[in-house]
Structure formats: structure tokens, C-alpha cells
């Protein structure tokens, strides 16, 4: 693949060689900070000229080193991420920011900090609820992050710099949403596999480069007359904790057009936008607690009220999906989770209740984050498509 590729070809290239640009930037003097979850406010990293780099695991890499410190019956995604770190696959990172977005991540963070000697490491606590005092507390966590980032970089994170970074990242959110608009036609103009490559590329590049890439991709896809996805009978929504490998997406696309990826490698990281509040950290705190629809955050119909009604509760937790289903003309959903993903797994029966209520057939499939999981995954996906066909 030539280095001067553009648009979708470039996204694919970045996807395939994710660390290449980060390594290059580091060789040129930039500092690269890893983060394993979308609860880390990348705006604060960008504002200080740091390159945010989303760390992932690798389903093709057998987990060997992580066994030194993590049990086998544990989130396979975090095991893989940690294993890659122990094998120095992310040796270009100058530091890590890990959020307490779920229990496995919180536990792994302690080990990460112990076993891998990054020059910079910061752990952010994330409250469990979206109550006002919890959001304010999260704002305090952002202040702590600001303090350690300033100490690490020797620079001040000024309001102006942060506002500018927020604008860049908001632009990226808007561009991703614009790209998702192009999955609305039948057939969609861009495939789930391509979307995954683009999003994973964005999480590997400085924000401005990502935005340039998105503009190229959008232009290319809008002008597409051939080469787009074939029309499939199923327009699929995938709800997942982690879906980060095209081999998985290709299985899903064997019988469906994946028009919405409700995962943190898909739309989840880009929904909403950061409001430019007088104190930008307030807007950041509100956005990360409110707009990210991860199962890890506790929400209920009428929080703090003395009565509760299940349908109202479902609406509060999953109501955003009804609009997605309508606007993208979705006719099936797969709830795809890595094994041992508790926050998402507890949601499964309720989310399936919700999909039933809006008339969408759904299935829950769990898989191990490993290449060996692909064959059984294919069997289950094909069986689902036959069932609803």
C-alpha cells in the first residue's frame, strides 16, 4: 500500500499498521499517550500537543504474558491489551491514561502501572451514576488529570488551548456522524468493515489528521458509483462492548449490511458533542458522563424518585436506539459481547425486551477475544440470519 494513499485506502492502511504514524510522530518529537477506553477525554491530550492513541488488544496474538498477573476467567479484551503491553507492542507510548470505566479496566490499570514502566501514567476515577454531584466529582477528576498532564508536559493547559481542541474533536464527532449518514441508503454507500477501519484509524491519528482523513473518506463515499456494499436482506445494528477487528465485521456482513455499530469502536465515542461552556472542563465532564451510552454508567427512568416503571426505565437507558432503528431502517440487532463483560451482559435481557418492544429481532452472542472464536461466531451469526430470513 503506498504511503500517499487517501480516503478509504488510507484508513485501511492505518488500520493495518496502526502504530506506524504514531511511531513516526514520536520519532519527530511528539509524545504519544495511550488510552484503552473512550471515557478518557482525548481533548485534554490534544490540547497539550500530545497524540492520543487508543490501545487495543489483538485477537491474533495468543495471550501468554498476561497470565503472569491476570486470571484466565477475566475480560479477554483487557487480558489481550495487557498482554500486548507486556510484550512491548506499544513501546512507542510515552504514557497511559486509564479510566475507571469498568471493573476489569480498573483492576488492570493497577497491573499496567506496576508492570510497565511508562514515563507517565494516570488513573481517572469515573463515578457510577450521572447524578449532579457525581458529574461534578468527575469534573474534579478531570482537574487532577490536567494537573498531572501539565506536570508531565511542562505546559499549561489553558482555556484557549482546551477550547480549540474541543472544537477539533467536536468537528471529528460531526464528521463521523456525517459518514454514518451514508450508511442510511439501501444498499449503504459504505460498509461496516470500512467504517470500522476508519474509526480505528481515527483513534490512531492526531485529531486534525483524522479530520482530514474523514473529509477525504466522506467525499469518496459520496461520489461512489461502484465498489460499495451489496444490498443484503438484513440491515443490522451491532451493539457491543468491543468490536475492533474486521474479521468479525466481515462475518456479520456475510449476510447483512451493518449500518450501525453501537460500540466504542463505532458510534458510541462520537455521539453528542462537548458543549463549549465558560469553563470548558464542565462541558467535558457533562459530555463524558451523559453522552457516552456505555452500559457501565447507571441510569434509570426517574433517578431519585420513589416510584419506578420498567418501560420508562428502558426508555431512559435505550431510548436513543429507537431513533437509530427508525432512521437507519434497521431490521435486526446482534448483541455481541466478549465473554465476562459484566456491565454489558447484565443489560442483555432488558435490551432484548426493548428491541422486542420496537419490533426488532435480536440475538445475544458472546465470544472470546481470540482468532479461534471466529468459526463459532460465524455459525451463530449465520443461524440468526436464517432464523429471521
Amino acid at each position, binding site marked *: 500500500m503506498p504511503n500517499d494513499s487517501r480516503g478509504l485506502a488510507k484508513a485501511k492502511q492505518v488500520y493495518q499498521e496502526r502504530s506506524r504514524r504514531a511511531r513516526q510522530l514520536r520519532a519527530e518529537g511528539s509524545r504519544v499517550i495511550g488510552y484503552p477506553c473512550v471515557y478518557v477525554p482525548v481533548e485534554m491530550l490534544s490540547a497539550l500537543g500530545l497524540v492520543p492513541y487508543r490501545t487495543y488488544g489483538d485477537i491474533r496474538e495468543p495471550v501468554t504474558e498476561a497470565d503472569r498477573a491476570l486470571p484466565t476467567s*477475566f475480560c479477554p479484551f483487557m487480558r489481550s491489551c495487557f498482554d500486548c503491553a507486556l510484550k512491548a507492542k506499544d513501546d512507542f507510548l510515552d504514557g497511559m491514561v486509564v479510566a475507571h470505566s469498568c471493573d476489569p479496566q480498573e483492576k488492570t490499570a493497577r497491573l499496567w502501572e506496576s508492570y510497565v514502566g511508562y514515563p507517565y501514567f494516570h488513573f481517572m476515577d469515573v463515578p457510577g451514576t450521572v447524578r449532579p454531584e457525581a458529574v461534578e466529582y468527575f469534573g474534579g477528576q478531570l482537574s487532577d488529570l490536567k494537573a498531572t498532564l501539565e506536570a508531565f508536559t511542562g505546559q499549561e493547559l489553558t482555556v484557549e488551548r482546551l477550547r480549540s481542541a474541543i472544537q477539533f474533536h467536536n468537528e471529528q464527532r460531526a464528521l463521523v456522524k456525517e459518514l454514518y449518514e451514508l450508511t442510511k441508503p439501501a444498499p449503504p454507500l459504505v460498509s461496516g468493515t470500512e467504517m470500522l477501519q476508519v474509526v480505528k484509524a481515527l483513534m490512531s491519528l492526531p485529531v486534525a489528521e483524522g479530520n482530514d482523513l474523514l473529509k477525504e473518506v466522506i467525499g469518496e463515499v459520496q461520489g461512489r458509483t461502484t465498489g460499495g456494499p451489496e444490498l443484503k436482506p438484513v440491515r443490522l445494528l451491532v451493539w457491543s462492548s468491543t468490536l475492533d477487528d474486521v474479521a468479525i465485521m466481515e462475518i456479520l456482513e456475510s449476510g447483512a449490511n451493518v449500518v450501525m455499530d453501537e460500540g466504542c469502536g463505532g458510534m458510541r465515542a462520537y455521539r453528542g458533542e462537548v458543549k463549549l461552556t465558560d469553563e470548558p472542563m464542565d462541558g467535558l465532564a457533562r459530555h463524558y458522563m451523559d453522552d457516552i451510552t456505555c452500559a457501565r454508567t447507571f441510569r434509570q427512568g426517574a433517578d431519585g424518585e420513589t416510584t419506578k416503571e420498567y418501560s420508562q426505565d428502558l426508555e431512559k437507558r435505550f431510548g436513543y436506539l429507537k431513533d437509530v432503528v427508525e432512521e437507519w431502517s434497521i431490521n435486526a440487532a446482534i448483541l455481541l459481547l466478549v465473554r465476562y463483560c459484566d456491565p454489558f451482559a447484565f443489560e442483555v435481557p432488558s435490551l432484548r425486551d426493548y428491541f422486542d418492544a420496537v419490533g426488532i429481532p435480536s440475538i445475544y452472542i458472546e465470544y472470546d477475544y481470540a482468532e479461534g472464536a471466529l468459526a463459532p461466531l460465524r455459525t451463530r451469526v449465520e443461524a440468526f440470519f436464517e432464523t429471521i430470513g
Partner: protein
Amino acid sequence: MYPLRAKVNESYLKSVEAMRAGKPTVWAMLNWYYGDPILKAMDLEVVYPENYGAALAATGFAQPYLEYADADGFPTHLCGYSRATLGYTSKMMRELGGEIPAEAPLGGMPKPIFLMASSAVCDARYKWFQALGRYMDVPVWTLESPMPGVKELFLEGARERMVELGVRHLEHFVAFVERITGRKMDWDRLEETVDLMIEVNRVWHEVNELRKARPCPMHSRDFWSAMPAALFMMGDLRDSLRCFQDMYAEVKARVDNGVGAIADEKYRLVFAELPPWHSLGFFDRLAERGWNFVVESFGYRPPIPLDLSGVGNTLERITRFGLQTFVGYYEDARDEHVPAGALAYPYLKYAGEWKCDGALLHPLISCRSASTHLPYVASLLRERLKVPSLIMEGDIVDLRLFDPEDALARAEPFEESMQHYRGVRRQEGLDW
């Protein structure tokens, strides 16, 4: 020690009677002191589904409820306690219209007026209560429980922001409980409850400090018997305080007279995490071999005492006390460069200060939050203190996963290992 356990049992039975008679009941997660004093001061009956899950498992009643949860679509790898409770509630609400299932052991759990979840320690402990919304329209209150990083706790203002969160959050929680019960909080009673809670735990801490003596005067089995009165505040706190004071006197007398908890203490061990409740007799078999369990699981021990006499706001005292459970070891953990200040570091301290020869680690297949850190604990103990670990897998609900006979068969080789490391420690200049 035994009067205390009897009081815990008596209090449990009284509570069951009151609940069956229609007294408002709350289902609560273990919350490490944040919510319990408030419920107690409001005179609400509290049942802990985590405990009830253990009771279901130990009495052999869990399996049918697990099958209900499976049939309702909950993944089978979820926390065993949660699956048992989800299945129990499914049956109670959907099949029996809210009546307690006739076969439910220990009086069962009646439908609550609200669910008090906690964000502490693991995701299941609030997602599980949220998931119960499928079966009953009962509001959930998720208690916020900050869990900072070790070095991050010492950033300017960080601890005070956690206290501020706790106080504001508990103010809202009290208002919520007042609305849902139609009762007003008796703040004098809350203050008295909090005073007793702190004092009970202080005395309990001192009892456990006495166990540093050689031979150790109190075995883990007594710890687990007494623990609910301090951690869950079960029973009347004034009674509990008297019992803990008596226990202190009894244990102190043993120390003064050189009386050990077991006949011939050959090996001193630290135990982590939840014990095999259904097979506690296993500890007796090990005691016959001279194994004395002198210190145990961090999350069930009282917090390191903190002087809160200058804190006037009762909710602030609760918050600081609850927070202390998790961050009480952080300063030492930071100084000794152990980023896992809560779940892993305490074992380093325990093994060193209680002069342990070995660690018995008990990872649980369906309780990952109580298991994740154990390989790291084993590594820390071996590398820093030359203390070996024996890992025996089990589960909180699936009793078949823990085989006491197999575990006992591994005891002898582990004794050789403990003997070997005694020599290594001596070579390294360690004093036990």
C-alpha cells in the same frame, strides 16, 4: 466470641420475622458503611442478596434459581450470587405474584421498597440491581463510592473532593429515604449509630491486631463468624460493641497466657478472598496440621482507625470512614510503590506484620472482582517477602469447583514450600 455470633443469628431471625410481618425492607449491597448507618437509623430492615446468594448455595437451593436466570437470558458467566437472586426474584414476582417462594431457605427475601446498590469494588453490584427492574418496579439507589488511584489520591484537593461527593450524595440519599418511607431522619439517632459503628470497628480492629501474637490467639473461623456484626452492622450495635469488647478481653487474655487458637501452631497463613462458606470445616482439617490462619481478606476487615472526633457533620464522618476502608493503605502503598493500594497491597502488609509463612488464595470463578488481583498478590508476596502462595480455585455458588479433599492433598507439598521459604527469608534478613 460465641455470644456475638449468637446475637448475629438472633438478629437475623428477628429481622426475618419483622419482614414477614410486613415491615419495610431494603435489599442492599455490601456498601462499606456508606449506606447502612442511614438505613439503620431509619429503622429499616435490610437484607443483603450477596449474603442470601451464599446461603442459597450453602443450603443447596441455588440451582433452581440459577436455571430461572438462565432461562430469562442472563449470561451464565455472570456473578453467581446475582444469578441466584435474579432467578429467585423472577420466580417470586412472575410466578408467585410477589409471595416469597415456599422453599426459600431462612425465611426468604420479601419484596423490598427500594434497592440500595453500590458502585464499590465491582460492576455487578449495581448492574445486578438495575437488572432486577425486569421483575419489580422498585427504585434503585446506587451509592457512589470513589475508587482513586494510589498516587492520584495525593494530588492537591483530591481527597476532599471525594469527601464532598460523599456528603452531597448522602444528603440526597437521606432525602430519598425520607420520601420513600414517609419518615423523617432522626439525626441524633444517626449520630449515635455512626459513633457506635466507628467504635465497634475500632475495637474489632484492635482484636485483629492482637492476632499478630505468636501463637495467634484467634483463628479465621472466628473472624468470619464475628465479621457481619461489624461490616454489615447486623444486630443491635450497643450489644455488638459489648460483645466485641468482651472478645477483645478474651483474646487479650489468650495472648497474655500464650494460648493459641489451635493446638500446635506450625504455620501462620493469610487467607484471601471469600472463604468456601459451604466447606468451612476444611479449615479445621488444616488446623490439625498446624495451619493457623492469622489474618484474612482485606475487604471484610475493619478500616484502619481514623480520628474523626473533630468532624462535626455526621454524613462527613460516614464518608470519611467509608473512604478509609479503601484508601487507608494508600500512603504505605505509595511509599512502597504498589499501585494496587486497595486490593493487593494490604496482603503485603498482612503477611509482613502478621509474620505469615504462606498465603492461601481462593479465586472464585464467577466472582472475578475478588479474584483478579490474586496472581499479582502471589507474585508480590513471593518477590518482596519470600512468602509462597497456594492457589485453590472455587466458586461462590457452584460448590463443585472447590474440592476440600483435593485441597488437603496439596497441603503437604505446600508445607515443604513454606519450610523452604523460611530459609530464604532468613537469608534475606527477614525476621520470621
